[in-house]
């Protein structure tokens, strides 16, 4: 059975959001996963014949996804409904 090799993990920022990039090789294929660090949910995966190819593909897709994250206006205070 194959074993994952060349495991690497690094942090960077995409569209202002911190992300975590994990890459490993399984057989002849490199697998990259990018998660959003906090809370740490997987957002993009890619494969490639080289580490660079897998990471480039994943970074491109992750960048596009992270740019779509909507931010609300800065919080202005507390709202509450009496009796709820």
């Amino acid at each position, binding site marked *: *059975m*194959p*074993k*994952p*090799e060349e*495991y690497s*993990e690094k942090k960077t920022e995409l569209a202002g*959001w911190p992300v975590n990039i*994990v890459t*490993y090789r*399984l057989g002849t294929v490199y*697998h990259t996963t990018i*998660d*959003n660090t*906090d*809370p*740490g*949910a*997987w*957002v*993009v*995966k890619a494969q490639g014949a080289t580490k660079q190819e897998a990471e480039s593909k994943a970074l491109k897709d*992750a960048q596009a*996804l*992270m740019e779509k*994250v*909507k*931010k*609300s206006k*800065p*919080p*202005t*205070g*507390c*709202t*509450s*409904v009496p009796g*709820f």
Partner: protein
Amino acid sequence: MAVQASPAAAQQTVLVSTDWVSQHLNDPSIRIVEVDVDTKAYGESHVPSALGWAWDTQLCDTVRRDIIPQAKFEQLLGQSGIDNSTTVVLYGDNNNWFAAWAFWQLKVYGHKDVRLMNGGRKKWIAEGRELTTDAPQVSSKSYKAQSPDNSIRAFLPEVMKASSEKSAALVDVRSPQEYSGEILAPPGLPETCQRGGHIPGAKSMPWGKACNEDGTFKNTDELKALYGGIGVTADKPAIAYCRIGERSSHTWFVLKHLLGYKNVKNYDGSWTEWGNLVAAPVEKP
């Protein structure tokens, strides 16, 4: 009155290491199951002899919003070669988010011996352990679930009461930006609520604070200090929530099973319920 197990003893019965799993891959009394956020991950590679469950089709009611119905739960476990005496070892991606969700549901239905593989899929891969794409051959067994144990599950009325009467500590385990209302969902994930912010009175403690860099859980002293810092202690009821209930399963697991706190519930309705309610109070710092 039952004597509460010490946190260390509790950990031994619900947490197993990657080493332990590698030594029990072919143990017939154990069934290893992978449950991921990314439901395609199992098909790409998994721990040898592990089965895969999809959280979005197999661990929920696919008609109404709810956990898996009892009859379907019995069917799923039986078809997975699990009977009531089987030790079920769960693991998954994202530091066991949905593995913890599955763990919580197995406990809702009264399964006795369920454990998490400490560090999850990430640690197994980082350690360079064997992977396969082969699904194991499984012989079906008969499984009988117990009636749902709602002492570990919080529904909306109880959460409202906890918020308004401070009858339980509310723990918001989402990211700080979700807690503050800056974003409605984690970056890169779909938005599923109408308003941002948090339940009035809830304290922020992102789920990942309970983990080390390698995905394993912090030790009990660290965990006690962490949650004690926001007023969550053994003598008080606590309710954890997130967006859809899986991250809060992770925190529920920590409080209930690693720290041994007696009265801890998972509010699986979470922010996608509260943040969509008409006229519900919302707090923004």
